[in-house]
């Protein structure tokens, strides 16, 4: 019977990445080489498009929760605003305004082909308005600068993927990034530059803050093909989100490689989230209903 039966695990690499304790282990040579080899196995021609997600793929986030990031940025932003306009906004006020602004920006932004997307400039305009501060373009830009500077301190470059991109480009291939994010392409490029990445490695970069069409909705893929004059089969997309970076492109005929966020890291993020939720509840700010399920 033993000889008769063989067991295959087609998602062994993704399973392994899920199980590692240290999120940054994917940067270690052996595992990085396995991931790069897996991606390269889909490159049938040097002229194909290597497409990458940005956050948690090309730029690795740390173990902090999204809520923590919002809260810490809110503290920095509120301090800056108070200094600039002599107001008395607390970090808690700014956090509530930020969470409300996120929701409004996502739900009310102009719809494109059934999709909506938040936008960082709009979010800060809404935040300032809620705090009864005149939302001048200059002050909005300063708030965005603070957020970008903060983000740079939280991110780590996934160098093995950039090395792969450089090799692919050297062979005549294309490399692009496609992000579902409220930061525009210009903002994302500033993050790359701030982290020492030469953005010329990308032939193109796209953010849903600009395109409105998103990976999650699946609407971005045919739009991308039209933009680039390419076929779905010309792409290999790589990312951390099961739905947006793996199932969505595959459902459209695009080869995809899923590099999930390790379970231990998810637990750390959840623990951090839970701790901050408790902390905020102790000052009468229940935030549960504001936070959506992460797209893991």
């Amino acid at each position, binding site marked *: 019977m033993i000889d008769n039966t063989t067991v295959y695990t087609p998602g062994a690499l993704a399973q392994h990445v899920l199980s590692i304790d240290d999120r940054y282990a994917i940067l270690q040579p052996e595992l990085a080489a396995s991931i790069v080899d897996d991606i390269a196995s889909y490159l049938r021609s040097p002229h194909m498009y290597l497409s990458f997600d940005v956050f948690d793929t090309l730029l690795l986030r740390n173990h902090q929760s999204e809520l923590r990031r919002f809260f810490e940025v809110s503290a920095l932003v509120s301090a800056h605003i108070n200094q600039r306009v002599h107001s008395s906004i607390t970090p808690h006020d700014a956090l509530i305004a930020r969470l409300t602004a996120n929701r*409004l920006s996502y739900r009310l932004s102009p719809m494109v082909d059934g999709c909506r997307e938040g936008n960082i400039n709009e979010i800060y305009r809404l935040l300032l*308005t809620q705090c009864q501060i005149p939302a001048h373009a200059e002050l909005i830009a300063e708030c965005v600068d603070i957020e970008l500077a903060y983000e740079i301190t939280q991110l780590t470059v996934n160098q093995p993927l950039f090395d792969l991109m450089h090799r692919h480009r050297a062979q005549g291939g294309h490399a692009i990034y496609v992000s579902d994010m409220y930061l525009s392409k210009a903002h994302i490029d500033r993050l790359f530059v701030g982290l020492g990445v030469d953005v010329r490695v990308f032939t193109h970069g796209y953010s849903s803050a600009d395109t409105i069409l998103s990976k999650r909705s699946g609407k971005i893929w045919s739009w991308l093909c039209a933009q680039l004059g390419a076929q779905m089969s010309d792409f290999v997309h790589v990312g951390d989100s099961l739905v947006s970076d793996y199932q969505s492109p595959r459902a459209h005929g695009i080869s995809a490689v899923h590099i999930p966020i390790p379970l231990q890291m998810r637990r750390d993020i959840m623990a951090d989230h839970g701790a901050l939720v408790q902390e905020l509840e102790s*000052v009468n700010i229940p935030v549960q209903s504001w936070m959506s399920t992460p797209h893991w």
Partner: protein
Amino acid sequence: MRNSPQSAYDFGKDVLGPIIHYYLHLLDHHMRYLDDGNTKFLYVSRAGVRIKALMDVYRTVTPSVPLHDEDYIWMSRILTVKACYTRATVHAQAVIKKEFPVHQISDVVRSLLATEPQAPEFNQDVLPFSLPASAFGEVFDGSNPVFAHIVRHFAQVADLFDRQLRALVGGKSRVVLIDSGWQGTSQTLLESAYPEYQFVGLYVATTYGEGQTLPSPRESHGLLFEKDEFDASQPITALWYNRHVMESLFEPKVSSIETLVTDAAGTVYAPQAQALLTYVAQLDDDAHYLGVCDYLAGLTAAHSLHRLYADFHAASQLFAQKILYPTKADVALVVTKKRTADFGRSLVVPVVYDAVDRHAHDSAEQRVREAIWIQGQIAVEYPDYDAEQRQRDLIRGVKTQAFFHDPNEQRTTTERDWQITLDVQPRVLIVMRTKNRPVLLRRALESVYKQTYTNYMLVIVNDGGRFELVQNELARVPLDLARVVIVSNRQSVGMEAASNLGIRATSSDYVVVHDDDDSWHPQFLQKSIGYLESSAGRKYGGVVTRCIQVVERVRGEQITILSQEPYKFNFQQVYLAEMVRQNFFAPISFVYRRAIYDKIGGYDEALPVLGDWDFNLRFLLEADIGVLDEELSYYHHREAASGSYANSVTGGISKHVEYDAIVRNRMLRQLTTHDSRLSTMLAMARYSDLILQKIPAPGASSVSTDQANQLERYIRLADERWAIIQLLLQQQR
């Protein structure tokens, strides 16, 4: 049930005040976001008049730049239906049908013509007026003089409404409707009648659940919540149980806008508008509103966002307590007005009935069933100690129906969703047996892919089939491959051995067999696992859902559905005694705890067919099986198929007959073993089966003397056999 107006005022000020303050904050910022110079904001009468009044108070203490263009629009649901009838006939008819569920067309006609001073007379007892109201759309045409009058009336109303709307909107392309909620019926009508405008609805809350008459509006936002049920993590969703609180808050004691007219200059206006605008609220019947007004007026510009949100949340919790678990005193606090029925009628309905019989056949239970606010009715009908338990049971019952929410469970839905992605071990093992049926396998993989519950491991057992066929189909369906294992056998080992191989390939808490020819509703796993993990389901070793039997034909890549019908649907519970008689659910419907599988030693690999029945019998000796009363699984049969595409039941029918006897005989031979209970029942079941075959079918007009005698003989025979079995059992003991 009458409380002092002062107490109701305090409720308005202390509880509703902070809630409305937060709502106005959200409304103001939604409006500011949408205020692009090309948008008209319209407060929809009647509620809109009060929302605007409260917004004005809010804005005096929260100074901000004025909005570009806001106004009132004078309308009501019946006026909108009349105005949109010609342009949006199907939707308008649907609203009428819902408003008059048990009425005659005569009632519809009276309502539609209630504002017409010269409405024609008609005999309600003759056709078409005596027909059910639901037939209105079918019989309504201009050939009948009364209907012809209505057609003219509709045209007149449509003209006036059209002039009002176009004058208000001007050249703008977007119209924002501000109203209390809940399903945006008028917005949907307007969207259909005026496709040239983009309508956006800003409502206190939206609920698009059961009982919805029309499609949801294209763009509507519930500012306090968008939910179809109570969610403990958002206490304000308790409003779902008594929306009347908000409706009555925004409803001045002035009738709704049902007519539009023109003045001497030809300008359209609503005669009741002035009364609405100038109505002065009185403490006696508007205590909540006055309380809210005073709360808002007492705010200062220094009121921080932190305090606004914290006060809202604290008030929401108090509000939820009063709505979900009210005492008698709370009912008087919350209900300050009766509900007035609009739509051309002058009916007034109590939100909570007095605890006295309304007629000879009335009862507390009936009043609870019929009350608008059920928890409130429970409070007035029963002593407080009893009422609270009934109120809790009601909420638990609703939640059980919806999502199997366990009220003792502290985690929110979001937290549970997150948790799913954190578990190292998959909770559910799905075993999919396949062999050279790529077309069916693709459908089965898609069935798994579409599941809303994702913490599973799919083990595909390729039992002697071509491995590349499985690989090809896996490449076509975007399943998470980290959740897929393929167990491939060069030689087939048979169905039950294949199941055991698959199940033993990996660990899990639950197991379900999803054969390659069957399929699931996308919520099958979510609801089944939710049930087994709820307090109601924890006592069961497994759960079966209702099932649809699908008869189909496969030609090449094409699957054609020939028929669908409920599969053996007439069971409410899973009785071991019934299972002994025959298997009555398919593996595709059955999710079970792995611990029971381990305990009974898995599937019997010696059985080429009926292995699932044998498994179910042994399973029921260890644990009960719950029933989830929803059709969530599909048991597919190929008509007249043979070879790979044959179904094991239809393709192996002779084996089923043969192994029916083998399974029963083997059980009976175990009379001296621990399985004697089952053996006994197997014997009984066979005899009862014989009897059942001879009993006239239910509904047979009469039983002949011969049949009666024959039946008596069978019963006597069964009694004798039962006596023998009892004797055997005594000997065993």
